[in-house]
């Protein structure tokens, strides 16, 4: 376990630079997820308002 952690950290210079290429994708996917959640919430609120009262 310790060896694996040391190995990962020792090669951090490699994979961190590679991972930087992923950042724009992750940012956009996160923004999309937030947007979708907001839209769902808005739609639910609209449905609740439109629903006939008791």
């Amino acid at each position, binding site marked *: 376990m310790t060896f694996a952690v040391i190995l990962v950290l020792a090669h951090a210079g490699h994979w961190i*630079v590679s991972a930087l*290429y992923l950042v724009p*994708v992750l940012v956009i996917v996160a923004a*999309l997820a937030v947007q*979708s959640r907001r839209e769902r919430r808005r739609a639910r609120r609209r449905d609740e308002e439109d629903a006939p009262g008791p």
Partner: protein
Amino acid sequence: MTQRRAVLAAAGGAVALVCVAVAGPDVASAHGLVGRQDLPIPRWLFAWAAAVVLIVSFVGLAVLWPRPRLEDPPPGRRLLRLPAEPLEVLGGVVGVAAFAGVVYAGLAGTQTATANLAPTTIYVIFWVGIPVASALFGDVFRLLNPWRAVARAVAWVARRGMGDGLPEPLAYPEWLGRWPAAIGILAFAWVELIYANRDAPDQLAVMALAYAATQLVGMSLFGIELWSRRADAFGVYFGLFARLSPLRWTDGRLELRRPLSGVAALDVVPGTVALLCVMIGTTSFDGFSNGPTWSSLAPHIQSFFASLGLSSEHALEAAFTVGLLGVVGVISACYRLGILGMRTVDPSRSAGELARRFVGSLVPIALAYVVAHYFSLLAYQGQAVAYLASDPLGDGSNLLGTASSTIDYGVITSTGIWYVQVAALVLGHAAGLALAHDRALVLYRRPSEATRSQYWMLAVMVAFTSLGLWLLSAQAQ
């Protein structure tokens, strides 16, 4: 599985796959010849800048492009008119002569790949040069296509001999669509990237003859033009790139049309989505297969196939085949993810229908990958044709007086190559966004709905751009 779950599962899968790919150090390209570069910013920052350019393009399209412009463009402006038949005959003669020359060189010439005309002509001029020429000048391959020329010549002779007695061609099965082309391109990529004897000139010549014979049989059964448009792998492949060109050749007329309108008019038959995914996936695998991530994975897969009884060479080929299919699968999954995301806006259309409707947006991306990945090969190794044409058999002859010419590696700097690659990727993906946006405007009533449907497509474009730049960055290390 609900639609939302499907989207999340696909998103998770795609991110995981990209993470696995990115977790290793940068990869080197199989075909890139790159020296030291002098860049003002780190390469990963180019990926970020490219993403920003795509987002700005997306916003620009949403604001400035409120109506479809590509679906029903104005008629093209005629630039030139030439007699169609003599032009076809001349193009066919040139194509058949070039094909015969390459096959003869492969069979009769030296079997040293670098000294024989066949490998360089097939892998550099044919595979890389014609896509670039098609995107610039229109469907040049259709004019030069040697098997189409032979088939037309045979049909002409048969018509003169038998008159109306010639049987009608069989009906081409609708379900077959462009599947033969997709399989053909995958097979060629397999030979280029995996086959152990891929550089052997005589084997390339035999494969070229076998391919031409298959095409002639197909054309004789189903008709020359229909077979060329649907099943001739190279005819379809180059024809797709030609749709990007503002120039269009038709019946001897050269017309200037609205850029990208040719792609918007693409008839989407079965197999078209698969073909585009194969085109992008095979180019991606070419870069990926030379990196340490694949180098560490491949021996394990090879051992597995060796344990099944395959020889070391065939086990390696099998391992690479798995990798090739895997990368094509990743590209298909990324596209599918964008489509599933689009369904959250319009659940009334099936994922299959949306995938077919928006597949045109992958055509400029496929070209961008070809240019970005093979530009240095074309710029440098393409020059070898000067001396190989003069000494096609590698026997010391000097037919054109250029046998002593050499490759000038100073024709473009490494930094220049990097900028061309980045520009190709950004322009290709921006063109893909424009095509998808235009199609969305046709499908959805309100522009805001069309824009909303394209959020996920934007994510796909940014993912493809980042992947392309990541694959390229290594060869510049």
